[in-house]
Every structure is written in C-alpha cells, then in structure tokens.
C-alpha cells in the first residue's frame, strides 16, 4: 500500500499481504495471493472481479468466516484492532453483527425461511445490544422502518417467502445495520434483483452507512455499479488485486491492462457493438504453479520479466496503485 493512502489514524480495516489456499482433494488451490488493502472510516470500497477471482473468499476472510479447508500461510487481516484470522470463534462471534456485518446475494435464502423476519432482526439485537426482549422488538421495528419497509409492525411477523426479493434484501440490511457496525460487507447484494430494485437497494446501503459513518466493502462483478456507488475500487483477477485506486482514476485512466479490458467489455458507455472489447482467454487454473503475474496468458502487453519477477506495486499519483510491469 502506498504511504499516501495511510492517514494519521489507524485504518478501520487492513489486509496485509494475505495469502490464502484451499486444500482440496484435487490439490491446493491458490485462491488469494499477496492481497493488501486498507479501508478508512466512512469509505465505500468496491472489489470488482469475474466469478472465480476470489472476491467472495476475501469478503469471508474479512468476516473471519472461512471454510475449514482454507489455510493462510502468510499475511493477516486487522479490523478495529482485532486479527480476524487468529481470534477465537467466540471472540469473533462477539464482533460479528456488532462491529462488522455482512449481507449476501439471494436474500431470500439468506434469511431463515421458517422464522419471522422481524424475529431474525430481533435475534441480532438480543445478542449484541444488551436489551430486553420487548425493547429488542421495538428496535427491530425501528430498524425495519429505517430501511423503508412499508408497515414495519405488520411486516415484523412476515416470513421471508411472503416478501419480494427486494424487501428481503432490505430486511438483511436492517439486520446488518441493527447494531450500527463500523463495517458492512456486501457480497453481490443485488445479484438476481431487477435493475430498478437494485438501484433502490444500493441507494439504501449507501444512505444507511453514510448516516452511520460506517464503511462498506462492496463485492461485485459489475464495474458500472461499483463506479456509481464506491469511493475507491479494487480490481481483483485470479486472486491478485491488480489495481486499486479512487473510482475516478480507475475508470478514467485505468493502468492495468485487465482493468482497461474490463471497462471495455462492460456494455454501458459504448455506442456500437463494435466498440465492445473482449478479454481473451479465461482465469488460469489456480491449482497449478502460477507465474508471478496471473494475467500473463491473457495479456497483450506482457514483457519477458512478467514471467520471472515478482509483481511490482507501482504507485501512480496519491491514491492509485497498479501491480504491473508494463502499465498503460
């Protein structure tokens, strides 16, 4: 991370040179490699990548919710003074829901199908807010009202299957924000929702965290969506953060060939189909021994050293970092 990105205070979240593998029957999968980033208070960071790039695993690692098959040979994640990878499950459970919260894609299945949605919000409050049952109920209804669920007293008693996908996602946001966490991790929160609902949900997430001065990590495959809502964007490719910087810098003058290709392949902003760029090849097989740069097979700017030298971290301007030997 460039020194300029550091402020005087300690960042809310620091991921430092994180390496993460999955042990599977068909070999070790090198899911994440050398991930470093920081997140300040009140900031919205987008992590953008194709499926299989490791962006969701990174989100789960931040929550300390890793699969037992995951191994972390190097690096760490510090959130609000805690090491999220080494703390006990009990301590992490205290933190989750209170200081760090998460929302998921497909909100209908993310909620318990046979428990009233209000009760699920209430469960979180009872666990973390040290309140009576009655008080928790009142506060749960308030939380539902804050996410603009119409008629929250009545909806408190609804089951997830009685609500639309958009409303379920609002309930999830209400649950996540019930205890005013410092950080909200949103893992593809609008996948599967209609575009109009997506806009409503994203507005809601943004407004909620802004008013609580919380931070967001938005995991998404949609660069345009990240562009509209995030302050900064990190582009992840095959377990590497290839470029990270302010949204303007990333979209206006991308430095990594992959970022540029990604922007070129996003349908919005093109006048004709002929302008639509493609990205050749696909993600490398993460079970193999990988070259230092994992984009090398898809890159038209590769140099000889790309296959040999470890990835550089080139700072461009104050808050823009690219990991490429031959940036644009």
């Amino acid at each position, binding site marked *: 991370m460039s020194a300029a990105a550091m402020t005087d205070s300690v960042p809310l979240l620091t991921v430092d040179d994180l390496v993460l593998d999955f042990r599977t029957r068909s070999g070790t999968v090198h899911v994440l490699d050398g991930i470093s980033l920081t997140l300040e208070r009140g900031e919205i960071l987008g992590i953008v990548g*194709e*499926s299989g790039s490791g962006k969701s695993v990174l989100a789960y690692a931040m929550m300390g919710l890793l699969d037992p098959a995951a191994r972390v040979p190097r690096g760490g994640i510090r959130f609000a003074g805690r090491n999220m990878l080494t703390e006990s499950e009990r301590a992490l459970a205290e933190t989750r829901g209170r200081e760090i919260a998460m929302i998921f894609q497909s909100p209908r299945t993310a909620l318990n199908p046979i428990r009233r949605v209000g009760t699920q919000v209430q469960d979180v409050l009872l666990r973390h807010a040290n309140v009576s049952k009655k008080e928790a109920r009142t506060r749960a209804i308030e939380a539902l009202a804050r996410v*603009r669920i*119409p008629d929250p007293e009545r909806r408190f008693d609804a089951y997830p299957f009685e609500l*639309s996908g*958009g*409303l379920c996602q609002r309930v999830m946001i209400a649950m996540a924000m019930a205890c005013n966490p410092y950080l909200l991790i949103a893992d593809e929160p609008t996948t599967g929702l*209609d*575009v*109009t*609902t*997506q*806009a*409503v949900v*994203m*507005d809601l997430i943004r*407004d909620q965290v802004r008013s609580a001065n919380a931070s967001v990590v938005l995991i998404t*495959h*949609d*660069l*345009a*969506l990240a*562009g*509209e*809502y995030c302050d900064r964007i990190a582009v992840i490719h095959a377990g590497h953060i290839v470029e990270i910087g302010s*949204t303007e810098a990333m*979209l206006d003058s991308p430095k990594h060939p992959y970022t540029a*290709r*990604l922007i*070129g*392949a*996003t*349908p*919005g*902003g*093109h006048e*004709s*189909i*002929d302008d*639509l*760029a*493609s*990205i050749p090849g*696909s993600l490398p097989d993460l079970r193999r021994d990988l070259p230092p740069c994992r984009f090398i097979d898809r890159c038209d700017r590769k140099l000889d050293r790309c296959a040999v030298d470890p990835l550089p971290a080139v700072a461009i301007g104050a808050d823009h970092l690219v990991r490429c030997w031959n940036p644009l």
Partner: protein
Amino acid sequence: MSAIMEAVRLVKRYPTGGGMLHAVDEVDLAIQPGESVGLVGESGCGKSTLVRLLGRLIEPTDGAIVFEGQDIAPVPLRRFVHDTARGRIQVVFQDPTESLNPTLTVFETVADPIRRLGTAGDRNALAAQVRKAIALVGLPPEMETRLPHQLSGGQRARVGIARAIALRPSLLILDEPTSALDVSVQAVILRLLADLRSELGMSYLFVSHDLNVVRLLCSRIVVMYLGKVVEEGPTEALFRDPRHPYTRALLASIPNPARRGQTPWRLEGSASSPIDPSPTVCRFYGRCPRQEDACAKTMPALRAVGSDGVHRAACHFAEETSA
C-alpha cells in the same frame, strides 16, 4: 415490407387458486425481416411467457401468431413440433448450463434438431451440417466429442447458439442469453451474436434485463410491464426521450458512474398482482409518481407519441416529454 413474425392481440392466462393470472395481455408485436428487437421488463412482467408463446413452446389463450405470412397459433403444439416452421423459429435459452442435456455430446446436441427437422440425408451430410454450425459459433472442431460439464460457460453458450442456428432459422429468439456469464465472456458472445445475424440474415428478438446490452444489439426496443407493452420505439429515441414513467425509471436505474452521489427518483415497491387485474386501471397505477384520476378510470392504450409513428407509449401523459 411485411413482418416476419407478428403477434396480434396475443393473450396467455393461467388459472391459479386466486383467479386468472394474466401473464401476457393482448400484446401486439411485429418483427421485420432482418430486424433485431429488444424486449425488456422486470421479472414477472410476462416477457418469458411471451418468449414461450412466440417460440411456440406453450399454447396461447387467445390471439394470432403470424409467422412468414401464416397464422401458426391454431396449430396444436403436438403437431407444430413436426412442422417445417418449427425449424424456422428457434430459441437460445438463458442458462447455458441448464439448456444442455448433460448426457449428450456437443455433436449430438447440435445434430438433434437437424435429425428431427432437417433435410440432411446421410451421415456425412449430417456431420457436415453439424460441423458447419459448430464452426459458425467459433468452437474448435475437437470440442465435438465433449460433454457439457467439460466445457466452460462461454463454450456452453456457444453450443446453445450452434444448436439454435443449425437449422438456419429466420427468427432467433434470445432469452437472456448472457445473463449467466461473466462480462468478459458476455462481450464475446454479444459480438458473436451480432456477427451471426449479419452473416445469416436472421431476425432477433432479444430479451434482456440489461438495457445496455439491448441498446448495443437492437434497433428497436419493446418495454413490458405486467403483461402489457407499455412503450416501444427505436432504441435511440427510447433512450433519449422515454415517454412512459416505467421506462424512465428503468433507464434511471442503470448503474452509471457518471451519476455517483446522486439519488434520482426511484421506482419503489413491487408491481400489483397479475391475478385478475382491473381492465380499466392503468397497470402502473399505484407505483407511478404521477397517478391521476384518469389513470384509475381508463387503461391507457398504446399509441404513437412521436412524429415518426414508430415510437409508441401507453400512458395518458405520454405526450409530455420528460425534462
């Protein structure tokens, strides 16, 4: 110029416990030869039902489907399956994984429609046709013997397209063909589709929830809401000057980095019930930012709003251009 496919007052209703579900309600839609028409709308608006009606996978409740000059709606599905028109309307399905039979190789998958409906005489002629289709979608010949689970998402999408174009249809209906794909793959498939259309001279009905995709591929867009067409018009006109409030909301919801920090008017809530909707109330009533008495009294008809006569909208206030 006569349309290659024209739906006339097409209706599909389903009986449900609570009444009749009006999935597609008196929809008129014409596709000209060589034209590429985009169909957009939120989930549950009836666009999938319309695709299945036009693709002749389900029987319409009422209305006509005129394809290449003949009304094919009265032909029962059981018989239509063996009709020559069957091969001339093909559909590319949404999920490339689900749309391939897991036990059939790429070759068998593409050969199936040719065997059933094609004219290929002997084995060699069939193989030649299959290889041609596989080559057209840009799959290397060695993929022929692969099974779906041995292919990547993009390759599966290509197989689905190869199967659909194997019979050289005149109308290809694409039901969200790229929604399950990553952007990088999506871009490739979209370009392939554009190339195939000009190469084979097909007409497209392209269904998508992504307006940006539709914009790139289609010259005309049809917007559906709760079983009805609420607006249709040339792509540029519709993007520049949407006349129906729903279309406006749809356009305003497209993620756009240029709008960062702004909160335009959002379409909240969900559509009213499609079960026995009132025939005299605008379907958008209740969700519309400007609902007036007229909207609750008469259902607005789809009518021309521009001088060109092709841009049409179903709103009482469609003449008021948006700011």
